[in-house]
């Protein structure tokens, strides 16, 4: 029997999803495994990147952009998401606007034991904040990003997309 290998999630697919959902701005702190995604985003003439100094800032910048009529996505790592607790509360949940956040799922694995506490607390954190989320690990999962955008729009709430594939497709040289 031939076992088909799942296709790795391509950064191009993410960028396509952004375009499909009308994203104008990416508010981000790059993490160590996403340099190719960052370079790819920079090449898109329709996309403006807003680099922040600390992850908590991303949700505040996001609120300002949203109030100003733009469509954005926050791209940060799970460690930074946890650092952003008060900002997520006050600038995202309480504000009542749609927001999609792509979260690099550092430490995630579906094989063996998760040893990285960053991964161990990621979903617990989202549960505590009452934020729904979708796991994207491979190319076939990418359509969940559009699902997240639709849900955020329908509920006027933040929705998270956990990128569980950060150690493969995003850091090409």
């Amino acid at each position, binding site marked *: 029997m031939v076992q088909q290998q799942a296709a790795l999630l391509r950064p191009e697919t993410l960028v396509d999803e952004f375009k499909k959902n009308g994203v104008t701005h990416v508010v981000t702190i790059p993490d160590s495994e996403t340099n190719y995604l960052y370079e790819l985003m920079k090449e898109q003439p329709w996309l403006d990147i*807003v680099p922040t100094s600390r992850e908590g800032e991303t949700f505040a910048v996001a609120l300002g952009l949203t109030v*100003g009529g733009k469509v954005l996505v926050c791209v940060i790592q799970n460690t930074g998401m946890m650092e952003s607790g008060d900002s997520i509360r006050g600038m995202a949940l309480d504000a009542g606007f749609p927001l999609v956040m792509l979260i690099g799922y550092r430490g995630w694995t579906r094989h063996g034991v998760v040893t990285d506490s960053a991964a161990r607390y990621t979903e617990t954190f989202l549960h505590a904040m009452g934020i729904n989320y979708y796991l994207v690990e491979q190319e076939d999962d990418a359509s969940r990003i559009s699902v997240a955008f639709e849900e955020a729009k329908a509920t006027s709430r933040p929705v998270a997309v956990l990128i569980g594939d950060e150690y493969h497709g995003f850091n090409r040289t």
Partner: protein
Amino acid sequence: MFDSADMFRAFQPHRGKSIVLVTGTSGRDWGDISEDKSRDLTLQGAMGQTNSATLGFALAQPNEKVVLFDSEGSLQMNLGVLATIAGKKPKNLFHFLMDNECYATTGGQPVPNASEINYAGMAREAGYAATYEFDNLEDFTNNIEAIMKQEGPVFVAMKMVPKVENEPIGRRVRRPQRPRAETIRVLQAELGITVA
């Protein structure tokens, strides 16, 4: 040091059609002085983050002049925003800092290195297009017209008289403030913005 209400009265004639945001204890005076409430915006909601939210709005509306009256306690919680703002170079952003050297709302305890820190110096070295410092009303009044004609991002540090609140929260007389959602709704209608 000068009084925040006097400072706002000196600013008001030069506001034009600017969108104005405020933070901190000193910022509360603006509500009594503003003559165009449809262009006053509140984006408070998380500690030290109004400045980052203001940047987001300025980037979304590059043709509108956006003026933030920040407080030093707030800025100290989010100093990285100086680099974030300088990096995006929003020409329409005016970042005023009301520095009363203390947490006025919690009884007047000093902020870290309250009297020696140089915020304008930090903004200048971070890469703001222009920076100013004022410790008296006369100099501020004489310069505000020229400042508002500058290309941003502009940073203006001002030494403000602290208005310390030391009553227990439950006994304080609250000045009515417009809710954040209302200011957003009114401003979006004014500018014809729809949330996508």
